[in-house]
C-alpha cells in the first residue's frame, strides 16, 4: 500500500508575513503549500491544481475572500474544495456572510497555531456525519 501524498493546501492572503507564517506552520506539519495574494490568483491556481484545502482571507485587493468563495462554488472542479476563512472582524454578519458564501469554517485573526492545526486536520479528515 502506498503512503498517501501529503495534503496540498492553498493559502490566499495578501499579507506576505501571514502567508509565510502559515507556510512555516503547515510545512512543519508535513503539508504541501502554495500561495496566492488575492482571490484572482487563488482562483487561477485552484482551477489548475487540485487542492485539499484552502485558507482564505476576507480582505484582499481585486477579488476579496467572499467573491473568491462564490467563484469556487460556481465551478464544478472547485465546488467542493474545503475552505477556511480568516478575518479580523468577528461580527455576526461576517460569520453569516462566510457561511452564505460557502465557507466550511471560520477563524478570527491572528490565528493561533494550534487552532489552525486542529482546523486543518479536521477539514482534511472530516468525520462521517
Amino acid at each position, binding site marked *: 500500500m502506498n503512503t498517501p501524498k501529503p495534503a496540498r493546501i492553498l493559502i490566499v492572503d495578501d499579507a506576505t508575513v501571514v502567508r*509565510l507564517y502559515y507556510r512555516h506552520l503547515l510545512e512543519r506539519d508535513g503539508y504541501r503549500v502554495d500561495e496566492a495574494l488575492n482571490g484572482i490568483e487563488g482562483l487561477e491556481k485552484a482551477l489548475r491544481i487540485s487542492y485539499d484545502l484552502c485558507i482564505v482571507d476576507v480582505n484582499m*485587493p481585486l477579488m476579496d475572500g467572499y467573491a473568491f468563495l462564490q467563484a469556487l462554488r460556481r465551478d464544478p472542479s472547485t465546488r467542493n474544495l474545503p475552505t477556511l476563512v480568516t478575518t479580523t472582524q468577528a461580527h455576526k454578519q461576517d460569520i453569516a456572510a462566510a457561511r452564505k458564501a460557502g465557507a466550511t469554517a471560520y477563524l478570527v485573526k491572528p490565528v493561533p497555531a494550534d487552532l489552525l492545526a486542529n482546523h486543518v486536520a479536521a477539514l482534511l479528515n472530516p468525520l462521517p456525519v
Partner: protein
Amino acid sequence: MDTALTLRDLSPDHLGSADSAMRWRAARALSGEAAATAQLLSRLRLEGDRNVRTALFSSLVAIGGTRTAALVASLLRSDDPGLRNGAIEALKQFHTAAAPAVDALLAEEDSDLRLLAIEVTRAWPGRLAVPRLLQVIEHDPNVNVCAAAVDVATELGTPELLGALLRLRRRFAGEPFMVFAIDIARGRIRAADGHGR
C-alpha cells in the same frame, strides 16, 4: 457599435439604468468629471455589479484630489468587503492626495478602519509611509493593525523602524505570529541597512 460616441453622450442618469452594460458605460463616461463626484459615490453604495463598481472607482480616481479621496475613504465603513477593498485599491491610486484621509482613518476607534488605512500606505514612497507605520508600531493597541504595519514594513521599511519593531516584539511576545512577522521585517530592513553603510 459606435462606442466612442456613446462614451461622450451619456449622462449621470444612466448610472441608474437597469442594464449593467449601460451603467458601465455611464460610469466610464464620467471618468474625471468632478461635477459627477457625488453621483458616482452614491451609485457605489447601491451598485451590486462588481464590474460597474470597478468603473465607478476608476472614474473617481481620475477625478483625484484630497476631497474625492476623503469621500472614497468613507466607503471603508461599508459591511461589503468588495466595496471596502475596492475603496482601498482606489485610495492607493490617489497617491499622496489620500494622505489626509489615511491620517484621519488612523485616528479612528474602529481597529478595522485603521488596519485598512495602513494598507493604503503600501503604495506610497517610503518617506511618506514610514512615519505612519512608526506611529502604528509604537502606539496602536490592536494586534491586527500592528500586523498590517509590519507587513508593509517588510516591503518598504527603513532602519528608523528597527527600534520600534523590537519594542513591538516585546509588546506582543506572547503572540507567536507577531514574533515571527517582526523577525522577518527586521531581517529585511537590517539587510538593507547593512548595505547602506
